[in-house]
């Protein structure tokens, strides 16, 4: 008994024991002195003393902190019991650790993404403003931004941002960095103070004043050696000197993965025919607009105010591109909103895994409880209250739960960073994963709740079989044993049901992924490599220079041995981002599908060989040729979807499309290409000849005869040779591009499968456990039947069919569960019904196969029961 006490109380308890023994001895002595016999004296003294254990227990209560004392005792005892059964303990703790770890890891991400504010002060009032655009908030043109800023009455501050690539030259090797053009109030609106120096001054924009830059903490450390006198230093950006005026605080890389923040001037893409002064530009929507709400202004009020201004702009400017309704959204919601659903589904998935783990550990505890039934019965007989025994058993569960929780937190700490891939790439750098107090508190709560869930049924069963009956026939086929088996069976049924749901979910996600991978993207990605170049503006402000650069680079590429075809495009399909232009269909008032919403088609500029290089089918008309130069008639090629949208049922050839910078004639129709995602139906897509619309950035694509990897080094070299100052980046085969575009889905499907596999293994262990226990319990019965001549095969079949009955019931419950949960998953599926019969059939088959394997060993054991041994052991 004293061994269970914490060491500092052990001595005192030892003394108490001695004191009570002394009491008894004195009583016996006195009685003997009065002439009683030794036996009489002893018996009478003991009777007088009463229950020595009880005396000690109530005396210890007088020491204070009795409950804590008992908890400590129970915990220490539980630890000893666990140490005595290392196999059981390891399996239970590991099972719990995996279940709890998965939950903590996912919660960590959910907490960082959905619950914790962005690392920006008062982020509830930070909003993104813009036209409604494909279900989200779109970008605005510079002139529209100026109008919004001047006319609104709801924002304390507004800033416009536009991500651009910037070439930094330090020494010979140029480097391409992610830059962001921001209006001067950017840092004020974000509420971020640079760690060194300052943000931009209001007058730091426009010609002559805009050569200042704020750099990220990471860049400051990596390229400038974290030098404290960096302020005032010159950096060569796009071949022009810029003065460093500030260093952003550590970790601040917003928006995108910004390394540099620059005043607006770069933002102007300098497209042919565009107004030279950006404040007149209403045709190119390239600014994301962030704003901070004035105190007391609601989102609805802000949205109403912005809508009025946007409607006024649309009315005044008849040539303006289509503008839908205006939206004002919380910035965080805008950035991470789309991951909410998948994160919550994942949270549901891991919760199911944890339930399976709980059921499994409960089942383990029950099976082991058979061996402990005697011990617990003995304790009850010796006067331990029933509450005390329940507490003892629950304490063991708590100890198990806390051990599992601690290990689970370690697993989560290691695993959570991998789960950031559940968040959209653009928001990933805003996600700060840390096992902060909230997450740790969650872990503790999960561990405790888990312990109660899996510990309660064993505890109740422990006291169900009571008194002397349990002493006699504990661990045999008593009523308590039968109720325990019933419990166990219910647990395994639940486990099987949960495992089925998880397997079905994983199967559906995997099938969606496979479906999506087999979608025809509209181009042939095999053997095509792409790499991109960004033309810095001051040097390449003239269209002629860009066209010349593109021509020289393409000529170099075509000379490389192994290159079968080469071309350039302003944006490679399925790469992140989008480019689109407003268009008016000439001679026809185009009817919007929904009021206030026109179709804004995707738009790219390509060189003549593009369709051939990517294997995009020409459906009608002609491809671009070298003749479609800057001075020639403006032409355009439309995708099948564009043709169907603008001229349903008619031939688009010879039709005219009017852009903000001129009218183009349709000379060809090509097959649809999936540009945003394989999951998305192809949107209208317009192609212009690069020579007629030379954007200052491009990707080269080359179809090679040997593998693209073997040629890409040489391709890079010849492109670099055209202009040594320009870095060549983003070298990827188009197969890689396709794979990357599927990565989030693949990850999600893979993760769910991993969790489902875990649940399946746990369920298998559960089935094995309950069947082994059933066989062990019935050893005697089986022995008798074997002695009476029952066939071993029959006994084998009996055990297997009993196992399968449990599994079958679980599967039915699981099917019902899948039906209830169907809506949670359906939005994440692609061309797969949430009740896909093939998936469910396969999952059921898998489950049955696993159940059979799990039953095999116990069934063989039943078959080999030796009647003589079985009967003798009883």
């Amino acid at each position, binding site marked *: 008994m004293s061994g269970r006490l914490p060491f500092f109380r052990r001595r005192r308890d030892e003394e108490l024991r001695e*004191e009570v023994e*002394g*009491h008894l001895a004195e009583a016996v002595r006195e009685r003997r002195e009065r002439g009683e016999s030794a036996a009489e004296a002893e018996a009478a003294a003991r009777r*007088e003393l009463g229950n020595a254990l*009880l005396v000690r227990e109530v005396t210890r209560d007088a*020491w204070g902190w009795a409950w804590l004392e008992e908890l400590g005792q129970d915990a220490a005892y539980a630890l000893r019991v666990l140490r005595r059964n290392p196999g059981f303990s390891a399996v239970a703790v590991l099972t719990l650790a995996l279940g709890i770890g998965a939950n903590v890891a996912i919660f960590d991400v959910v907490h960082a993404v959905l619950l914790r504010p962005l690392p920006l002060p008062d982020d509830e009032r930070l909003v993104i403003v813009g036209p409604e655009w494909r279900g989200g908030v779109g970008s605005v043109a510079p002139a529209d931004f100026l109008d919004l800023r001047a006319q609104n009455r709801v924002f304390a501050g507004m800033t416009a941002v536009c991500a651009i690539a910037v070439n930094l030259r330090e020494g010979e090797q140029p480097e391409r960095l992610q830059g962001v053009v921001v209006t001067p109030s950017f840092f004020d609106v974000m509420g971020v103070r640079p760690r060194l120096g300052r943000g931009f001054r209001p007058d730091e924009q426009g010609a002559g004043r805009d050569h200042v830059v704020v750099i990220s903490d990471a860049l400051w450390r990596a390229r400038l050696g974290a030098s404290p006198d960096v302020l005032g230093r010159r950096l060569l950006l796009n071949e022009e000197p810029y003065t460093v005026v500030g260093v952003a605080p550590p970790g601040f890389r917003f928006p995108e993965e910004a390394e540099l923040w620059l005043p607006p001037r770069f933002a102007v893409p300098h497209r042919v025919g565009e107004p030279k002064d950006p404040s007149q530009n209403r045709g190119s929507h390239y600014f994301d607009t962030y704003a901070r709400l004035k105190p007391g202004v609601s989102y609805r009020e802000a949205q109403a105010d912005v809508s009025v201004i946007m409607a006024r702009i649309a009315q005044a400017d008849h040539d303006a591109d289509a503008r839908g309704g205006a939206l004002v959204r919380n910035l965080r919601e805008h950035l991470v909103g789309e991951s909410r659903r998948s994160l919550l589904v994942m949270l549901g998935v891991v919760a199911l895994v944890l339930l399976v783990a709980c059921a499994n550990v409960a089942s383990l505890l029950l099976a082991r409880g058979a061996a402990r039934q005697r011990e617990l019965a003995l304790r009850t007989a010796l006067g331990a209250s029933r509450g005390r025994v329940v507490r003892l058993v629950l304490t063991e569960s708590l100890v198990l739960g806390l051990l599992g929780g601690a290990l689970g937190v370690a697993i989560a700490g290691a695993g959570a960073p991998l789960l950031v891939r559940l968040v959209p790439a653009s928001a990933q750098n805003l996600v700060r994963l840390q096992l902060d107090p909230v997450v740790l508190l969650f872990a503790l709560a999960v561990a405790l709740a888990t312990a109660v869930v899996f510990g309660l049924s064993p505890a109740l069963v422990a006291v169900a079989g009571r008194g002397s009956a349990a002493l006699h026939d504990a661990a045999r086929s008593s009523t308590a044993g039968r109720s325990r088996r019933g419990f166990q069976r219910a647990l395994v049924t639940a486990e099987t049901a949960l495992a089925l749901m998880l397997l079905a979910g994983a199967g559906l996600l995997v099938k969606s992924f496979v479906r999506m991978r087999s979608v025809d993207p509209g181009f042939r990605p095999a053997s095509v490599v792409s790499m991109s170049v960004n033309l810095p503006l001051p040097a390449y402000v003239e269209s002629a220079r860009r066209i010349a650069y593109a021509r020289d680079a393409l000529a170099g590429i075509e000379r490389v041995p192994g290159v079968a075809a080469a071309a350039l495009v302003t944006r490679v399909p399925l790469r992140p981002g989008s480019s689109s232009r407003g268009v008016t269909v000439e001679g026809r008032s185009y009817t919007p599908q929904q009021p206030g919403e026109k179709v804004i088609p995707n738009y790219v500029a390509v060189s003549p060989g593009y369709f051939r290089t990517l294997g995009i089918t020409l459906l009608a008309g002609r491809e671009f040729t070298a003749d479609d130069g800057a001075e020639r008639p403006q032409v355009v090629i439309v995708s099948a979807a564009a043709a169907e949208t603008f001229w349903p049922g008619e031939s688009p050839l010879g039709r005219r499309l009017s852009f903000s910078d001129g009218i183009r004639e349709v000379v060809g129709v090509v097959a649809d290409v999936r540009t945003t995602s394989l999951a998305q139906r192809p949107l209208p897509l317009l192609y212009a000849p690069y020579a007629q619309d030379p954007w200052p950035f491009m990707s080269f694509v080359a179809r090679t005869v040997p593998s693209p990897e073997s040629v890409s080094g040489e391709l890079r070299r010849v492109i670099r040779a055209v202009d040594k100052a320009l870095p060549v980046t983003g070298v990827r085969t188009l197969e890689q591009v396709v794979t990357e575009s599927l990565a989030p889905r693949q990850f999600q499907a893979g993760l769910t499968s991993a969790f489902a596999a875990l649940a399946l293994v746990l369920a298998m262990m559960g089935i094995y456990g309950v069947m082994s226990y059933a066989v062990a319990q019935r050893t005697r019965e089986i022995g008798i039947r074997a002695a009476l001549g029952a066939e071993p095969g029959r006994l084998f079949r009996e055990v297997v069919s009993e196992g399968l009955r449990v599994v079958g019931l679980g599967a039915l419950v699981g099917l019902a569960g899948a039906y209830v949960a169907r809506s949670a998953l359906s939005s994440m599926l692609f061309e797969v019904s949430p009740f896909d019969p093939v998936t469910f059939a396969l999952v059921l088959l898998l489950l049955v196969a696993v159940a059979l394997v799990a039953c095999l060993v116990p069934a063989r054991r039943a078959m080999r029961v030796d009647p003589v041994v079985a009967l003798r052991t009883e």
Partner: protein
Amino acid sequence: MAKPAAYRNRIEVLQGTLDLLLLQTLQWGPRHGYGITRAIQAGSGERLKVDTGSLYPALHRLERQRFIQAEWKTSENKQRVRVYRLTAKGKRQLLAARSWWDELTGAIGGVLSLQPERGEP
């Protein structure tokens, strides 16, 4: 609750008075637990019975409150016993408890000896 006949003329020590009895018993000199039980039994003409399950918690509580002190001694029986002694603080507590007891018994006695008064009908 019905009690076995043998216990009938024994009185269970009232809760709250046990502390007083223990302190009072120790005023006559240090004693061990069993010795205290015997002293109370003998002093009450075998009418008061102190249950072991009440005795030791009370002793340990009084010890924690510093009213008594304990030390290990060896009895005539060569048995190691824990012997309790009254502290100065305990003596003061005993005086306070005694006056409380006197007041209580006086008050109760007063109530019990009250004669019904006859008032105007």
